[in-house]
């Protein structure tokens, strides 16, 4: 039985700037973000993380003062914008809206789960995946057809109108209102007093 071949790494990626802790934190953050996008395919996930961190590391060389987590997040966002641009017919959308539309479409067609290798891969976009994304739309309401619904006054009749006018006048004169309340109270007391004699 022959001995297994030694492990050989395909790339030479090793961040040459920044601490290991900072790159570990960046790794965890990208991983969390991909998981939040429901990218549960570990193989695909790890490929994406490496790609993103490589890009971030290259930028870190030029901007060593930047935090690797921030750079990695920016690279993820840039990758997503480009990918959504390729998947969606969204040239007219501003970048931040493109990501919004893209994520909504992805969510509606369960893209991350149904096409586990498609996420952020702009070289291999399955035709059925593209069709599903294009077909996904979320409509909170149908087209508006505006109607006018204006309250019309109700003629309350002479007695009620008079009562309403009186009450509104009372509301304008709080002292009068209080006096009236006291009068009612005193009247009730007097009534009970008389009744119990």
């Amino acid at each position: 039985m022959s001995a297994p071949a030694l492990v050989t790494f395909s790339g030479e990626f090793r961040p040459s700037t920044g601490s290991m802790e900072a790159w570990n934190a960046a790794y965890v953050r990208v991983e969390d973000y991909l998981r939040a996008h429901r990218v549960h395919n570990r193989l695909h996930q790890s490929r994406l993380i490496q790609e993103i961190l490589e890009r971030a590391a290259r930028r870190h060389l030029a901007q060593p003062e930047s935090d690797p987590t921030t750079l990695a997040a920016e690279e993820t966002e840039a990758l997503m914008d480009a990918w959504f641009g390729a998947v969606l017919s969204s040239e007219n959308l501003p970048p931040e809206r493109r990501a919004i539309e893209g994520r909504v479409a992805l969510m509606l067609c369960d893209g991350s789960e149904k096409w586990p290798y498609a996420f952020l891969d702009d070289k291999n976009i399955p035709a059925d995946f593209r069709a599903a994304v294009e077909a996904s739309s979320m409509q909170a309401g149908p087209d508006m057809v505006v109607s006018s619904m204006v309250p019309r006054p109700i003629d309350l009749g002479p007695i009620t109108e008079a009562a309403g006018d009186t009450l509104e006048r009372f509301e304008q004169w709080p002292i009068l209102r209080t006096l009236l309340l006291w009068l009612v109270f005193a009247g009730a007391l007097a009534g009970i007093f008389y009744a119990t004699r």
Partner: protein
Amino acid sequence: MRVFKYDQMTQRRLNRRRFLFFSAIFGLTSLATWFMADLLWREGISGLEIVLLGLFVVLFAHIAAGFCTALVGFYVLNRGGDNCRISETLSPNDDSPLASTAIVMPVFNEDVSRVFEGLRVIFRSVQETKKLEHFDFFILSDSNRPNQWIQEEVAWVELCKQVGGFGKIFYRKRRHQINKKSGNVADFLRRWGKNYRYMVVLDADSIMTGRALVRLTALMEQNPQVGIIQTAPRIVHGESLYARLQSFANRLYSPLFLAGLNYWQQHEGNYWGHNAIIRIQPFIDHCALPDLPGSEPFGGRILSHDFVEAALMRRAGWGVWLAGEIEGSFEEGPPTLIESAKRDRRWCQGNMQHAWLLTARGFRPANRFHLLMGVMAYASSPLWLLFLALSTIHVFGLVAQPPLAGVLRAQDMTSIFGFMIEVPEALTLFFFTLLLLFLPKVVSVVLTLGNPEAVGRFGGRLRLVVSAILETAASALLAPVNMMFNAKFVLFTLLGQGVGWVTQQRGADDDGSDWREAIITHGGQTAFGVIWGLSSYIISPPFFWWLSPVLAGLVFSIPISIFLSKASFGRRARELGVFLTPEETHPPYELKRLQQNLAECYRHLPPFEPLRANYGLMQAVLDPYVNAMHVALLRQRRPSDEAREWFGLLRRRLLAEGPGKFTSKETMALLLDAESMIWLHRELWSSPSDAIAEWWRLAIRQYNVLTSAPTTALYR
């Protein structure tokens, strides 16, 4: 099948029906007034006695109206049903054409699972009728709690995905909750009303079967002069003893009252605010509500809009029908006495406002009567209280005064047209009143016992009778408690005050009201009952025994309230077969499905405790999909420079400090601003851990490790 034609119900025939109905009320009230006047008028009549007599007339007439409705209902049902019903215009299997109909469900901080699972059941039920193309569904949200709002959005998307509902089920969240429910419906009508011929208004706890919805729409198509058809929702899903009592009473007694109401109302029925179909165009044209004179609570915005809308529809010449016989319309009742009183507090204020409209020009007499009955539903409580208090004072006066020699005492004799019968007058009157209060219940039980199939649905003869006796006893104990509640609500409304409430405890055992809440809520009633009882007993023991049914409810209101609120007792009663309803013994498919779905929903663990209070905000910021969905649903706005600056400060504070110190208003403001939500999502995920608050670090950690297979909010 008898086909009802409108020309059968001539105005003359309708007038005859109404003459009989109102004459019966008048006759019974006159008879009772005779006894009461005779009781009071043995030694002349004093001012106090005149007031007592006046109150008695008003209160007895109110009882008599209920009794006569039931009596007429009995007459109708005994004849095999009224042929003048709106449902008679269509045969049960008639495949009539339908028209575009919107099912609208206004919601305000409701249990999201219940709302959307209810909607799922309704949607599926309509789908099964194969008439789905005629119906669209709208959730109209006025929820102003951040968690609630985000949860609603997530639930809406998930529901649409699962049932293929995009383009059929819509979600609308108002930024400003103007005019509450009626404003919410009016907002819908202004935006989309023209797209539909009818709308069915549902409450958040309503369920209607597809068959019922299709039938209602067909009935509207069949009767182009009808503006509203109101169904009679059955109260279902009661768990606590209180809820099951209400459900049982509603199911057993309502057929009699519904038949009676339809007999004299006909096309001048009422609208109860939900589980009804409405013709949209006339509603838009005539039912926009103006403000009442003065300010709230007595004036201002009309709170109980439904009765007024029915009156306005009628004024414009459109028919309003009650279709109590349509099956498949359900709602849920309050689980406890205290929750029921909270609901009454709201309704009381709204119904009291209707006093303004009693003399409104152009309203039909039938609508005035509905409005008056609405007012009396609450105003009768303080009147009863006053009547009882004055009676007590009157008795005190009689005790203090020795009887005149030679005068026949009312407590020994009854006088009818000068003939003396050796039965105490008060006892005669007492039994007469009891007859009016309890005969409809007895008749309902007897009618049901005569139908073996119906008896089976209530759990059998013995269980039905035992349940009815227990329900009667419970309602007798609850009546004085409700009287005290309503008297307080009316008084506070008249004084322009709101009523404060202790927030209901929904503790770990989730088993009804707790003692603290019950003591605070019913303490005053208990004290009132004890003082009243003691003073009555000291002055006149016989009077104390007359008052004892009222006093018992008040004195024991705390334990009664606790006892009835227990879900465990409710379940036990169900096991024993007490208060069974047809919906429990033979639940319709839709109700069964709803219960199963809800059980599934509630099995999920609640969010991690430290994150729970702001879970909605957390999802909307953290979760890429929830964030995108939320932003996509927001209207694009261009805030002013000042607003932009304020939002900038607010969102930086949110990331640096966490949401703990944010007010609900600040959280809502951020959630309403699309730019801020995009910024927060981006900044949160790109900020190093030490630059964000501990709360956010915990949120990121927890969000992805809650389950072994990581899931996002849309699957929780």
